[in-house]
């Protein structure tokens, strides 16, 4: 049986892992390479790195770091942030990443998804989206609007429509990061996650809000997620991946048990 994936997300700034609440007030937590190795040995199923200041500072992604991670981590990992062109995708994948994640870029230039999928395969192209809940259902039928550039900019796009369009364009997976839940540790946005996951045919990764293991149980059952991202709850050492997996296992959710 295919297992549900737990994916620690490492937001990297100046080669340090940081974490904030709703994209604000970031504090440094550690070295990305050391944390990646510890997570991989601790039983995480995949990793994602966001070079979070890249798109705001308009500089290219840190390829040297991608290579260093690939040398020591032999599980899949995705890299996002600062990817502007097909050539950027190629360099990240060639450095050893399994997947590239595009977010703001895909909103501005949806064609890049199709080009990337054609050039490297759909399985390499991840769409990251940062939806925020909105009241205006006439403009946003799903009740969620897509934001970009770390919630700094609204797009006027409906989140579900964007997810379906991205699937048609050829993305292999969608990471749904709730702006409302990000960093709050109050639980995933289950309505949003379920809405996207049950309306596309590709895997959906829930992101934003994980605080206790029960939140992951909820997002895999009520939220219908295929994978879930954790950050604060494990970065701080409060929970280990093994402890989260033990609770998921007890709840009857299939997880990878041997690593």
């Amino acid at each position, binding site marked *: *049986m*295919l*297992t*549900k*994936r737990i994916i620690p997300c490492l937001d990297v700034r100046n080669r340090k892992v940081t974490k904030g609440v709703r994209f604000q007030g970031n504090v440094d937590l550690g070295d990305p390479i050391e944390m990646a190795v510890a997570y*991989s*040995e601790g039983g995480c*199923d*995949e990793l994602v790195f966001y070079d979070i200041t890249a798109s705001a500072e308009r500089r290219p992604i840190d390829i040297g770091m991608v290579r260093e991670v*690939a*040398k020591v981590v*032999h*599980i*899949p990992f995705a890299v996002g942030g600062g990817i502007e062109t097909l050539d950027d995708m190629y360099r990240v*994948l*060639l*450095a*050893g990443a*399994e997947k590239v994640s595009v977010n703001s870029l895909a909103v501005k230039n949806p064609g890049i998804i199709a080009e990337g999928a054609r050039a*490297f*395969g*759909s*399985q*390499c192209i991840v769409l990251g989206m940062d939806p925020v809940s909105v009241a205006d259902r006439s403009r946003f039928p799903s009740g969620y609007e897509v934001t970009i550039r770390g919630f700094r900019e609204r797009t006027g796009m409906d989140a579900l429509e964007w997810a379906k369009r991205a699937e048609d364009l050829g993305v*292999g*997976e969608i990471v749904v990061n709730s702006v409302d839940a990000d960093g709050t540790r109050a639980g995933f946005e289950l309505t949003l996650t379920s809405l996207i996951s*049950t309306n596309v*045919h*590709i*895997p959906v990764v829930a992101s934003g809000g994980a605080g206790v293991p029960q939140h992951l149980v909820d997002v895999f059952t009520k939220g*219908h997620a*295929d*994978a879930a991202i954790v950050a604060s709850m494990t970065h701080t050492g409060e929970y280990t991946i093994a402890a989260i997996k033990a609770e998921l296992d007890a709840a009857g959710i299939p997880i*990878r*048990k*041997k*690593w």
Partner: protein
Amino acid sequence: MIAIVDYRAGNLTSVLLALEHLGVPSEITSDPAKILAAERVVFPGDGAAGESMRNLRELGLIETLRAVVERGTPFFGICIGMQILFDFSEENDGVACLGFVPGRVTRFQPAERAVKIPQMGWNAVRFRQSHPLFAGIEDESEFYFIHSYYPVPADPAHCYGETEYAGVCFASAVGKGNLFATQFHPERSGRIGLRMLRNFTEWDGRC
């Protein structure tokens, strides 16, 4: 020296880095002479069957691979590099493949809409027969998969491991003499995947 066959089929870096981690000399190459001279051959790849076969033809590698397999060189196919070892793939409206292992490759047809295609993630491999490449690996260990098609060997004797997804139980590890192949990616399957690759680097091609 291990030759990692480059036929423009996706990202070969993770295979190279996994072998590097094991301390085994290896080289990514499309050169038939180097592939023929290699002690072992890894035939990896992501992508579609049609394009993969076209690339092999253009690079003049089909006969090279056949010669390598026939002379008994330990050979490891991964993902699309497993699928195109069979006679035929249904992908791209049907593609004649290498025919090193009798059988065909077909697409997942889930009855339930909720089943996602591709299968992406970690799934268990149940061993059907023992094999030198399974040494030190527990039965039902999980490996990393990413695929929409799966192989159906004509002869069950070629199935060494099986995996369940989308309502089918398919051959996720196949073997025939000096040839071994997996639908999953050992190079991305952590410590257990590395163990399988290490077993391959020590394998004499007999089982």
